[in-house]
């Protein structure tokens, strides 16, 4: 399939030189954007309302971007393969650079936005670079909470869901409980959990696990209930035992639903993570953001937000990657 697509792109490249040329221009765009942003940054004077930046990190960052754009452009001239990938992304990269430049103009250059809440990019980058080791410490703390809590929640959720789907007696006693306790946002348990767990870390981990657990449980059970009966019947006629059917028919068939549950749970777990850190912890990115906000250090708040969004982005990307690996068989069947 991928081969076909690749060759299609190549033939259109050959048969429509005008089109190819116009796209080749797009690979220059990031260079133009970065150069323009650099000229604006160095050319216009900084507004007097902003505290004077000690280091010109943003200018430095733009230089790095410019260098990258240049390297990408040159690579594109020599490698057709790289160019086809790069030229479709290039306008987007240019857009990002222009957006950063706009931020630069609105903050450092003109101070059109309130100076206290919208610090210059130099200062935000400054925090990221100068506070790096401390932010890393917070990052590791958050990641550990997130990973341990998520894994516990996912494992318990899948197990509970499978048991609910296959064992009627278990469902009879447990499902009402799941229905009543599950929808409560896990952060609402905070007052109770804080006093019943020995440490803040264990309490936070538990809440993150709880946040992942509920949607995973419900959707896993749902997935199992929705499996067409003939799959089970045909497995039986092939001599499969009950346990074999659970692991080789029930669970794989419920996988797509399971991943939707895990995805929902992951989103809920981010909320729980940040809230837990803001309320109870003495470390972590959520705590860092909250603490800096109280100190009115908004440059640090933005730095924290950037790191936080990176965590979430990486985590979701990891989950999607896992899903694509596990659900290869779904390629072209369902998309969500």
């Amino acid at each position, binding site marked *: 399939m991928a081969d076909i697509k690749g060759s299609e792109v190549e033939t259109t490249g050959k048969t429509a030189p005008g089109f190819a040329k116009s796209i080749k221009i797009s690979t220059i765009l990031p260079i133009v954007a970065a150069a323009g942003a650099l000229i604006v940054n160095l050319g216009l004077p900084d507004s007097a309302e902003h505290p004077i930046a000690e280091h010109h990190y943003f200018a430095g960052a733009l230089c790095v971007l410019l260098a990258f754009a240049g390297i990408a452009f040159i690579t594109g001239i020599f490698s057709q393969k790289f160019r086809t990938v790069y030229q479709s992304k290039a306008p987007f990269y240019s857009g990002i650079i222009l957006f950063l430049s706009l931020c630069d103009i609105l903050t450092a250059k003109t101070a059109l936005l309130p100076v206290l809440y919208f610090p210059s990019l130099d200062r935000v980058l400054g925090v990221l670079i100068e506070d790096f080791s401390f932010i890393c410490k917070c990052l590791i703390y958050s990641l550990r909470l997130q990973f341990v809590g998520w894994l516990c929640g996912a494992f318990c959720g899948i197990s509970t869901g499978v048991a609910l789907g296959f064992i009627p007696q278990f469902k009879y006693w447990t499902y009402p409980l799941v229905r009543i306790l599950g929808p409560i946002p896990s952060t609402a348990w905070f007052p109770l959990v804080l006093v019943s767990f020995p440490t803040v870390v264990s309490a936070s981990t538990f809440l993150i696990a709880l946040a992942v657990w509920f949607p995973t449980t419900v959707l896993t059970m749902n997935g199992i209930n929705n499996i*067409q009966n*003939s*799959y089970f*019947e*045909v*497995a*039986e*006629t*092939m*001599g*499969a*035992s009950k346990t*074999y059917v659970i692991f*080789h*028919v029930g669970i*794989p*068939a419920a*996988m797509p639903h399971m991943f939707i549950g895990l995805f929902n749970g992951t989103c809920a777990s981010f909320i729980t993570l940040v809230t837990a850190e803001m309320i109870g912890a003495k470390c972590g990115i959520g705590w860092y953001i909250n603490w800096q906000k109280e100190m009115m250090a908004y440059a640090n708040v933005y730095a924290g937000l950037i790191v936080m969004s990176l965590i979430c982005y990486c985590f979701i990307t990891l989950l999607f990657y896992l899903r694509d690996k596990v*659900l*290869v*068989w*779904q*390629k*072209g*069947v369902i998309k969500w």
Partner: protein
Amino acid sequence: MVEGGISISNIKKTFTNVQNETITALLNINLKIPTGSLTSLIGPSGCGKSTVLRLIAGLNHPDSGTLTLDGKQIEKPGSDRGFMFQQHTLFPWLTIRNNIAFSLKAQNIYKENASRVDEFIDLVGLKGFENYYPHQLSGGMCQRASLARAIVSHPKVLLLDEPFGALDAFTRMNMQDELLRIWKERNMTMIMVTHDVDEAIYVSDQIVVMSPRPGRIIKIVDVKLARPRARSSNDFLLYRSKILRLLNFGGTEIQPEFSI
């Protein structure tokens, strides 16, 4: 003493539908299916053909009456009776190869029989498609794969519920020939549900004609034609008109010597 084959006697089977009414799906069914024969069940939809197959498979249980396979009561599904559903029920999460290997793995006899999987992939002409997923193949190929999956563990009996119903006419005729080839090679007892009269006459030793409300057998027709059968021979057409009349279609007798 009953030796060999399937024996169905005095079967009654009722269902309760959504409106809580009792439906008599089968009444007074008596049928003997000799070992190694090929039997077709034919009749309008709702006459209980699938139910007969499901009873033999052990997926449903009769209200009264007995079903035996080689003298032993049929109680639950087992790998001695392969089942092929109308819609291919290949597992979408397994490749064709793993689908076909499923029954061997489920019975924990895969290791010593791994080569059998390739043999059956070959047998149904799917060589080169082992690593495809079901949705990447055509309907006909999927039916071949489910056929291979149903027979890879050498069942004594193969139950086929309208196996080629969803296929186009040409693919269907091809599949009928392949089914006959496999039947001869493997010497299995086959019972096939169909609503295609030609298909029934083309492949079967005996054709069980059924009628609905309540589901019952109205006639068992033995097809005494040598194989391979010509689909347009006079004898074939005679069987055809006979069965159609049993099913209350085609009131006029055909004249074997008519000219176009």
